[in-house]
Each structure stands twice: as structure tokens, then as C-alpha cells.
């Protein structure tokens, strides 16, 4: 800073620290709740420090699930979420990197029409056209399947734009050199363009993994079989069952498990995450 004002620096630390604490508070309480027994969690005020039932609760949730509305083992829903998140992230990257390659490196009739057709998909989130999209997926017989969970969500333009932007910044000399050496377009793509795109791919992967993992409405609509439930929708479903004695401890253990993978991805891949966030919004 330009001048030394100890009071402001202390105030800055205090405010940010307070912000961090308030932001972390709900997750702390969730963690605390997941380490107590069911009885403890039924008396108000509930404890604010962790209890002794951590391993017991998590083991139960992971292997048996807990059930007021059918118990699905969380291990299974976590696997489904992982398949969905990976499918969405990798699928999006795969189809958009090749279409960006086509749009940037080739001249062909109808190029601009294709470009605009992809562009308009930027605008409509799946929530807006949810009813007819459900109808289409149902008529294709894709309800209750991984392809139904994944494929409708990979039609989006953001990734294509990111790669287009990046390809435009690749120097023309590289393309010329490749052509002089007689490399075919696909050879150029595999040996030069793809290795150069590594950082963009990593950044996009982090963002899209989180997007896929956190999907809620879509899996809620198109899955009716428990074997396809994802972890996020299961948490919300169980939280909304009103009858019976609530097992807050187990519900919160489930919520912790639903949050953990994407949060770890963000924390450990922070640089790629920030980059992806900024770049997809360009």
C-alpha cells in the first residue's frame, strides 16, 4: 500500500477474517452435525463442537445410505455423480475443441451459419427450456441412463468460444510450417494444437467438472431408478422429507460428502479454476 496506516490494515484483516468465518460457518455446522448421534442433534441448542460419531455416521451413509425415502448408499450416488461430472466435462471439451478447430482453421460453405447456431446456445440455460427438453429425451428413450444425464448438457457454446479464442492467438507461422512439412490437418491438430491447449483444457475441465457435479434439476427429472441417482439430488430429496424423526447427523454427513469432491478440486486446482472462470466469461 502507498502509506502505512496500521489502523486500516488491522481493520482490513478483521473484516476479511470475519467474512471468512461467516462464509465457513454453515459448513462448520454441517461438519459438526455429521459427527454426533441422532439424539444429540434433536435437542436445541445443538452442539457447536464435533462429537465422537464421525466414523460411524460416515460408514453408515456410504455403505447403507439412510432412508426415509428409500435408502441409496452414498457410495453409489457418488459414483454416479463422478460419472456424470467426468462425462459432462470431457464430453464438452472433446466436442467443442474439434468444432472450434473446424471453425478457425477451415473455410467452407455455411461456416458462419454453424458458428451462429452454436453461438445462440450460449443464451439459454437448461432450466428455461426444461419441459420440452425432457420431452425430447423421453422420446429418444434416454431416461434413466448415463447418456441421458450427460449428453443434453454438453450442448453449450462457452467451451467452443474459449478454444476459438485460444486458436486465434496461435501464430500462423506454426500452421505454415506444418503445411510446408506436409502435415495433414489432423496431424497438425494432434501434434501441435492439442499439446498447446493443455492449460486451456485444464482450466475448462475444472469449471465443467463442478458444473456437471452440481447439476440438480436435470438428474432430478430424468432419473426414476435409484441406481442412477446423483449425490446432490439425493441430499436435497432426503432433506425435504418431512415425516418421521429427522436424522440430521446422517443427512449432514451426506451433504459433506456431496460437497467434498468439487471443493477439493477448486482448492487444489485453484490456479486453473480462476483461469477457467475468467476465461469462460470473456
Amino acid at each position, binding site marked *: 500500500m*502507498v502509506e502505512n496506516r496500521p489502523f486500516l490494515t488491522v481493520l482490513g484483516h478483521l473484516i476479511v477474517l470475519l467474512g471468512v468465518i461467516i462464509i465457513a460457518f454453515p459448513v462448520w455446522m454441517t461438519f459438526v452435525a455429521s459427527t454426533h448421534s441422532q439424539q444429540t442433534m434433536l435437542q436445541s441448542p445443538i452442539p457447536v463442537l464435533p462429537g465422537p460419531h464421525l466414523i460411524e455416521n460416515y460408514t453408515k451413509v456410504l455403505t447403507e445410505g439412510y432412508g426415509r425415502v428409500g435408502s441409496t448408499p452414498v457410495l453409489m450416488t457418488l459414483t454416479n455423480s463422478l460419472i456424470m461430472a467426468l462425462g459432462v466435462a470431457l464430453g464438452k471439451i472433446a*466436442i467443442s475443441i474439434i468444432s472450434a478447430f473446424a471453425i478457425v482453421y477451415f473455410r467452407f460453405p455455411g461456416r458462419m451459419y454453424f458458428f451462429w447456431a452454436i453461438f445462440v446456445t450460449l443464451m439459454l440455460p437448461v432450466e428455461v427450456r*426444461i419441459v*420440452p427438453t425432457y420431452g425430447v429425451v423421453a422420446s429418444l428413450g434416454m431416461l434413466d441412463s448415463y447418456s441421458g444425464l450427460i449428453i443434453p448438457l454438453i450442448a453449450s457454446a462457452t467451451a*467452443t468460444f474459449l478454444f476459438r479464442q485460444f486458436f486465434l492467438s496461435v501464430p*500462423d507461422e506454426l500452421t505454415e510450417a506444418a503445411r510446408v512439412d506436409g502435415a495433414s490437418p489432423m496431424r497438425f491438430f494432434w501434434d501441435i494444437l492439442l499439446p498447446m491447449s493443455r492449460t486451456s483444457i485444464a482450466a475448462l475441465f475444472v469449471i465443467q467438472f463442478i458444473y456437471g457435479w*452440481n447439476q440438480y434439476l436435470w438428474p432430478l427429472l430424468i432419473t426414476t431408478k435409484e441406481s442412477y441417482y446423483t449425490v446432490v439430488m439425493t441430499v436435497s430429496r432426503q432433506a425435504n422429507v418431512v415425516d418421521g424423526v429427522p436424522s440430521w447427523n446422517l443427512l449432514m454427513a451426506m451433504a459433506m460428502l456431496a*460437497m467434498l469432491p468439487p471443493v477439493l478440486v477448486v482448492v487444489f486446482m485453484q490456479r486453473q479454476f480462476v483461469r477457467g472462470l475468467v476465461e469462460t466469461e470473456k
Partner: protein
Amino acid sequence: MEKRVTFNERWLPYLLLGPQIIITLVFFFWPSGQAIYQSLLIEDAFGGNSKFVWFENFAQLFRDNSYAHSAQVTVVFSFLVAAIGLGVSLLLAVMADRIIRGATGYKTFLVWPYAVAPAVAGVLWGFLFNPSVGIVAWMLQGIGIEFNYVINGNQALMLVVIAAVWNQISYNFLFFLAGLQSIPKSLIEAAAIDGAGPSRRFWDIIFPLLSPTGFFLLVVNIIYAFFGTFGVIDSLTKGGPAKATEILVFKVYNDGFRGQDLGGSSAQSVILMIVVILLTFVQFRFIERRVHY
């Protein structure tokens, strides 16, 4: 911008574009077209028969008080989410920017809420404010405030706003921090030499220079409040109590899947599509000509 050097191939580019175009056609254009078509139909209550009615569904929506109410809730909700979210994250970003040592450490502690699914965020906040076991509800009771979002509409709205803001705060924070760090230090130093104190420097230099980021985030937050908060609302209040938190996108879902009113729901979808297109247009305009004062 165009490439100078390109490849000459007849079929390859179509092959490369194929997967994305097919998926876009099947899962984007087809359903969107259907939404537009169905918004002009009225379906028989017993299914099967449908009648072409032009804009009757739209006319009905505009006469419908519950639609006007939902639109009003959406406006209030988006305003609160955007205003509180931007205010809080700007404060945090400005303070974190002041702190040179420890700023990156704080960053790690502020970015992770982005990774929490909106639906899970709803469950977390619902637990804190739960009328029977919630710790915050208990503390509020201690100071004489009866908090029960299950029956009190205003409190329910407040709670979904808090959960939605919490979920979006890291996004706003990161963009504000990046914006702050791109302001040349020489400007701040020059102002300091001229005798401007910290708050004067903030309002006269930093704030105006941050306005492009602010406008961009405003649009993003409105889009988020309109469409991205479905999970928060569905897992916290389901639009209730008494439709106090039923935002437009929730009503599309409710009328379409719960109420089985396909024509009405499609008409709402079409209206929302127009809203998104307008918002996206505004967003692109601002990015094109970043407002500077």
C-alpha cells in the same frame, strides 16, 4: 478476427463440427422450437387433443395474478441477490487487496463456496435456520426474534437470498479482486501524494475504474438470480410458503411438471427465453465497450 493460413479440405470440417451441431440441434433447437410451438397450443385436460390458439396462452398469463406475483418476487429476489452479493464481495475484495501479506491465503478461504451445489447450499442454510434445531434460529430466538421460514414468507425470501448470495460470493470476489489488481498503482500513489485519504481514493479513483467489472458482475448476478438459483429454492422452500419465493423459473417447472399445464408452461419458457436473450445482449454490449468514466 480470421486466420490467414487455413487448410483446404472438403468434408473434414463438417465431420469435425458434426457432433456439436447434432447435439445442439437435438437438445437445443428441437426443444426450443417445441416450446415456442406448444406455447401456441392448449391441450385438453384429458390429454391427446390440442387446439391451436395463437397467443391465448400469453394473454392468459398476463391476466393471471399469480404470474404477476411471481414476476414481482423474481424482481425483488434478483435485486436483493445482486445488491447484497456485489456489496459484500466488493467490501471483501477491497480489504483483501489492501492486505499484501496473507491475501492469497484468504483467497483460498473465499473461493470454495463456488464449488458447493446450489441445492446443497440450500440444505446447509435450511439446517442453520431450521425452526426446531437450527443454531441461528435458536440464537435469534434468544434475542427475541421468532424465525420460522416454513410459515413466514418474508423470512423465507430472506433465507433464499442469503443462501443464493453465499453461493455466488466467491465468483464476485474473484472478479472484483482481479479488477482491483489491474488498477495501476501509480494512480493511487499520485492521489496519495496529492493528499487524498483512503476513502477519497476509493470513491474518486478505484470505484470509477472498477465500474466495468461492476456492470459485468451485475448482469451475471441477475442472470444467476433468475436461473441459477433453482436448486437453492427447490431444496429450501419449494417456492413457498404461499408462493412467497416462487421465482419465474420455478413456476415454469411447477406449472409444467406438477400442474401439467404444458401450454402455459411453454409460454412462460418463451418469455424467459426472451429475457435471457435481452440480458445476454446487454452483457455483450458492456463487454464490447467497457464503460469508462
